[in-house]
């Protein structure tokens, strides 16, 4: 029994966390709330560390290491609340890798691997297509602002649109978490190329497993902050961390995080090995991590008292990001419903 990442990967996780803490300190995340700017340094760092290339095969400029390094990076991204276009890394890249035509892969994957391009995805869109030209509006799209390429659904098929085309209009939307930009994209008879595969589920599962790791990273950092604070803040003559009301709250947060982490690790294994139980494992990871981060963000803010509601505290960074991550890829209630349907139908995990 070896239910853990390998020693090499555990080292990589440490390196990623330290590198991102430096490239994307929480102070930077706070500034992003006002500026809405992407942290280019952090994005470039992921490129230098080979993370952007790891889900891409060596034929197209990738390093072929597969999804595990991306999962580890996601946890570090969550830990640092970094403002980077993760939809490109978690979802669009594996989607082009699994469903793109050879020409599309050749055109986009090397640029995605190096970080010189980013991609956005709206696979649940219902756009009109005529003679390989797309018309309609998708909104809100995560990672759309500044994306070089968009993957959309039209006529129940996946299409790829080069965002450099003239007939595309991007409009930034106001998001509760400006570190996760959302935008509206309008296509007006925009040229598009059809993707050859239409198995979008694998990439979606890839995305939600990565998001689960990001949620766990964020929840862990929120918990750590609350632990530190409750060891120092004094009330009624004692540090507040000595009171059971605070202890029990933090113990409950930790419990939810540990359970979510176990689910995410199993889902990562399933993703990395191509196991047939991925849909069940990914749904469990998604539902569990969403609950853990929402709960951790909400209750660690509470531990900070009035200070937790100030802009100066870190609490709102986690509170915003937890909401943003809960909102992407469908609400937790839907994932729990899908999970229940699979369980009632008798699906089980491999181990």
């Amino acid at each position, binding site marked *: *029994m*070896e239910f853990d990442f390998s020693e090499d990967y555990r080292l990589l996780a440490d390196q990623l966390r330290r590198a991102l803490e430096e490239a994307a300190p929480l102070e930077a995340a706070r500034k992003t709330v006002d500026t809405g700017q992407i942290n280019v340094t952090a994005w470039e760092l992921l490129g230098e560390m080979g993370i952007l290339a790891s889900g891409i095969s060596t034929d197209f400029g990738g390093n072929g290491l597969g999804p595990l390094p991306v999962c580890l990076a996601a946890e570090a991204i969550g830990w640092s609340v970094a403002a980077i276009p993760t939809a490109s890394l978690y979802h669009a890249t594996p989607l082009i890798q699994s469903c793109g035509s050879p020409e599309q892969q050749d055109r986009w994957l090397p640029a995605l691997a190096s970080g010189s391009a980013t991609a956005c995805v709206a696979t649940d869109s219902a756009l009109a297509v005529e003679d390989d030209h797309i018309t309609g509006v998708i909104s809100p799209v995560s990672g759309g602002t500044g994306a070089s390429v968009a993957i959309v659904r039209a006529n129940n098929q996946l299409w790829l649109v080069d965002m450099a085309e003239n007939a595309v209009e991007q409009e930034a939307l106001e998001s509760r978490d400006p570190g996760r930009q959302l935008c509206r994209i309008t296509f007006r008879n925009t040229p598009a190329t059809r993707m050859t595969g239409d198995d979008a589920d694998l990439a979606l599962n890839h995305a939600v497993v990565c998001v689960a790791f990001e949620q766990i990273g964020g929840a862990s950092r929120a918990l750590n902050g609350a632990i530190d604070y409750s060891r120092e803040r004094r009330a009624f003559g004692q540090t507040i961390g000595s009171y059971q009301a605070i*202890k029990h709250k933090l*113990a409950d947060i930790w*419990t939810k995080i540990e359970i979510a982490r*176990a*689910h995410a690790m199993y889902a990562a294994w399933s993703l990395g090995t191509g196991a047939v139980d991925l849909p069940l494992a990914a749904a469990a990871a998604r539902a569990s991590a969403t609950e853990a981060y929402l709960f951790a963000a909400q209750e660690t803010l509470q531990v900070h008292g009035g200070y937790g509601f100030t802009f100066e505290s870190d609490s709102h960074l986690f509170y915003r990001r937890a909401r943003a991550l809960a909102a992407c890829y469908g609400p937790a209630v839907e994932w729990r419903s899908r999970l*229940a349907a699979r369980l*009632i139908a008798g699906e089980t995990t491999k181990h």
Partner: protein
Amino acid sequence: MDFADSPIDAQFRAQAREWLAAHAPVTRGRGRVAWPDDATLVAAAREWQSKKAAAGYAAIALPREYGGGGGTTTQQIIFRQEEERYDVPFGVYEIGLGMCVPTLLALGSDKVKERFVARAISGAEIWCQLFSEPAAGSDLAALRTKAVKTGENWLVDGQKVWTTGAQFSDYGLLLARTDSSATKHAGLTLFIIDMRAPGVEVRPIRQLDGGVEFNEVFLSGVMIPDEFRLTVPGGGWAGAMTTLMFERLNVGANIGLIDSSTLIDISRRLETSTGRASDDPHVRDIIAQAYLNDRGLKLLTYRTLTNLGRGQLPGPEQSITKLVIASQAQLIANLLLDLRGQEGALVGSALGDGWEAVERSWSFGAAMRIAGGTDEILRNVIAERVLGLPAAKRDDTTRPFNEDAA
């Protein structure tokens, strides 16, 4: 990541499986076999224990020189996983072998080890643990049972409670106060007590669920020879902590409560006034929620096994299992009983196949949230020993106990 046993453990599992298939009586159904009375249970348990002992499976992780299997904790867990598939008598030897014997090996003199360990492992003698008292539950160090030295013996007076298996035990671990003028934790000493000695009176406690698994034990002038003392006088608290530490090695033990699989199973078959229970969105949401918890705990057991394989002992993080599973069992049981409407007020045996397990979780779930560390104490353990939060300020640990108790 690799979910397979190591080659040595895989071989151990295969052998255990083969041995169990040949020797274990009945394949396990849903829910546990109810033993009609203690005498039948003890006789069956004794027979099963002696078979296991002869094959080296009775105390797998304990040393061979005392009749143990000389194996690893991982192998002990593997054997338990395999043994769980059979309806074998549980609950008679678990406390003795899981907590008392490891304590004897850690603290006992050579004479004590020679006298007791092999006989406990073979099943010849049954052990219980006498820690809790009516006024000392979560606050164990508040216990008042007194042991006074008279010549070469100790005279014990007091009362213990929640003593599982006291009615059929031969010996017990007894934590008693030997110095009331010392501070609360410093005045305790750990002993071995002969449960058949004069002055030991065991009275069963009738429980909420009608069962009588626990006992009160009244101790009046019970004589304990000094050679049955396991710690220095006043060193009992550390000794008791040793015992409780071994409880953590009880990894992955099935505490017999229902989980998401029972909820799925029953709700798929259950018709309510509004349709099939498993079609109800609220039921489906609880199915998902419960699965996330019990599947998550199973995966955490894999983490513990991974750590054991690396030579790390389970730590206080083990507290998570009981904390999550016991209250969840109450939640699931209440949901299922709700779905039966007015019938849900009937006893389990009147509700049909599989419902006695539901009723047991409704009732015994409450007990499991208290036994072996209440939910509240477990949260304190997680907060203080895992998360590093400060202990609550208290004023009962620095004064002499007899001033505090006055």
